[in-house]
């Protein structure tokens, strides 16, 4: 992997993605002090998806990464978790279905971005369909980030958004809508992807904070701040492609909704050493990107100001309101489809009823004929019949 990072040193989006991924993995390893073999295998496939140039290979790598993650969940869990690990295979394949359709149908431009967005939505957000990893107990945060953040970034980074700048504001609106039932981590990852639509550099800078999402200590408040900044940048960029008044309305509404998940965030209690370690990883990444990438210092104008203002105001009001009306700030429940009934009957006692009765001339003759078919002793007659038929056909 190091070799590939080295040979692609001229392409910061490729090695930048890998650097962020490594920082997240390091944070996990430092925290847990152990890492399971199938998680390593899964992480390798996700890393390869970040390096792959072909979208088809990216999808295959993600599918394998998901698979090994499910094997890890399967191998360490109770029976209930084992069931879920098998069920997850279906869910992960379902999430990859839209983008695979796009690749197979050869979609281009807006159509492909739209269909890829659907895949990213399914992998990233736990609403309206519950995310499969969020239900797991074991190592859920890191597993969730592998599935949602890393795979979404791997799919997203291959697109050239410079010709489709409107997707930044569209994506922010989608994020706002889906944030009604999402966690703040999902919102931040999604906002980073929105920043990527304006410029890959901004996307990488926003993603430099992802290591803070692994262990979720007090430094996650920084994540809220960066969400506001990303929203402001997207709003500013949107003013060039959308009518001004519309941008004001979209920015204000989005900020109002996007601040909501951050109100209810509860940072985990950790030692200051661990907090500093994660912060250090993020700061190093951020510094590295600032040093290496050509950055245009963004100017936050009235559109961005609107977003930041509404975001901060909503957050402050929300914090005050939260103690009295916490339900206002809790994520909505995801939709759950009806389950197919469990097939628990043992195979030896299926005790099935007879199939559809077809009464097409059933009589003693047909009974004899079908009994003859089932009888080994009558096989010779059937072979003879076949021989005659073949002989006649051959003529």
């Amino acid at each position, binding site marked *: 992997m190091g070799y590939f990072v080295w040979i692609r040193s001229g392409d910061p989006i490729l090695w930048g993605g890998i650097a962020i991924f490594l920082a997240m993995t390091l944070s996990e390893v430092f925290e847990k002090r152990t890492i399971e073999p199938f998680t390593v295998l899964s992480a390798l496939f996700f890393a390869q998806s970040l390096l792959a140039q072909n979208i088809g290979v990216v999808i295959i790598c993600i599918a394998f990464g998901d698979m090994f993650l499910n094997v890890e969940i399967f191998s360490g869990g109770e029976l209930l978790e084992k069931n879920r690990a098998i069920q997850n295979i279906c869910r992960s394949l379902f999430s990859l279905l839209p983008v*695979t359709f796009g690749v197979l149908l050869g979609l281009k431009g807006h159509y492909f971005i739209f269909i890829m967005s659907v895949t990213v939505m399914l992998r990233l957000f736990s609403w309206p369909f519950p995310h499969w990893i969020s239900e797991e107990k074991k190592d859920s945060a890191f597993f969730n980030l592998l599935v949602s953040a890393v795979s979404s970034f791997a799919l997203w980074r291959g697109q050239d958004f410079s010709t489709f700048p409107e997707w930044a504001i569209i994506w922010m609106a989608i994020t706002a809508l889906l944030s009604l039932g999402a966690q703040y981590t999902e919102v931040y990852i999604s906002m980073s992807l929105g920043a990527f639509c304006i410029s890959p550099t901004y996307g990488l800078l926003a993603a430099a904070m992802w290591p803070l999402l692994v262990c979720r200590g007090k430094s996650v408040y920084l994540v809220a701040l960066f969400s506001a900044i990303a929203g402001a940048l997207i709003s500013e960029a949107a003013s060039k492609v959308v009518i001004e008044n519309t941008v004001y309305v979209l920015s204000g509404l989005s900020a109002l909704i996007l601040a909501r998940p951050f109100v209810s965030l509860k940072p985990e209690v950790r030692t200051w050493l661990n907090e500093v370690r994660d912060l250090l990883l993020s700061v190093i990444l951020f510094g590295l990107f600032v040093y290496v990438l050509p950055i245009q210092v963004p100017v936050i104008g009235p559109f961005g100001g609107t977003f930041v203002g509404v975001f901060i105001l909503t957050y402050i009001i929300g914090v005050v309101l939260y103690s009295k009306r916490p339900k206002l700030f809790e994520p909505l429940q995801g939709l759950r489809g009806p389950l197919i009934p469990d097939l628990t009957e043992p195979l030896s006692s*299926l005790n099935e009823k007879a199939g559809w009765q077809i009464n097409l001339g059933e009589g003693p003759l047909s009974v004899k004929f079908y009994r003859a078919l089932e009888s080994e002793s009558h096989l010779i007659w059937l072979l003879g019949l*076949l021989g005659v038929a073949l002989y006649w*056909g051959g003529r």
Partner: protein
Amino acid sequence: MRLRIIVASVSLILSSAIAFLLAPSSRAPWVIIGLLCFGGILLFDIYNQLPRRWMNLVIFLLTYALILCAVLENTAEAFWRDFAGALFFTSLLFEQNSKPWSGFGPLRTTVTPALIFLMLILAQSVPSLPPELNYGFSLGAIIIAAYIELFCIFRENTAFNAGSFMSALRIACAGLGTLFYSSVFIPEIARQHPFNLMNIVLPAIAAIVALFSIFLKHWRRRQILFYCNWSLFIFWAALSGETFRFYAAIGALVAGVWTIMMTDHESANPQNQRELYLKLSTWGVPGSFLFTIIIFALSPTTDDLVRQGSALWLLSFFIYWSGLRSFVFQKERTTSKPEWDWRRSLALVVTLVGASLLAGIRVLPGIFSEIWNQVGGVR
């Protein structure tokens, strides 16, 4: 039992050797593919279903002989005749080895589709038929060959046919026959309008069958339909006219036949992960031999119809995978399982190697070529 296995193996190898020696060089690969499929059935027969009766072995070898004759024939008529014979034997094997069933409905026996197949073949010999109608009969015959097991899906105990050697034999016959037909005897009109629409119609049929399978209660019945669709998938991949897809179709044939024979018949055991992996592999989930083949066969193309067909295939495969959504392990085991033997170990190795083919052919070459370019650039 051992004597029967030895006799079957020797007969299989001898008949293959004779066919190989008699075959012109262009037909020799077909003999090898046939040996791979039929040999695989014998090799991976983990429940020893085939040598349980002498009659099974005799019909199995006769079917193989007919398929070998079919791929050595010089005329389409003779090929279809041998192919029909092989399918008829296969349908008889279904009847020989099925559990008793009631109703006696002619639509619930596998012999009926075999006879319809024969009639469609015989209809082609009617003089002065337009080529379109002739090819239409061939297409009908191929679709019937793929869905023979659909006819008996509603009778009792059909679920036990899932993963049986009869199913594998049906895929081997139908797959080899259709592949050979698409390679050697297919008429030019097959690639022209309206027959080029088959690139969409065939996967659409598969999608409808997949949707129908949702209503079947037991997973083993769904699996029977999955492998019926797999037969059609082989034909579709060969029909597209692209060389790499044709090779993928050959891979799909061999992988399909072998995987059916590797299927564990018992309910899944959460403690035995190897067994569970083999069981999941039969559905073509990521990390299986079948998944590798699906990726190869659905490779992106410039042909719009094939593209749309690929998307439909993906949909029909997903419908089957969606069955895993409600997967639950049984808490109490009532059936006794056979010991893990060398055949299962071999099956595990083959599935793993098949799965890693995807990385070996699809992912790694790009990486290696990049390293190669870098090294060349340094020099």
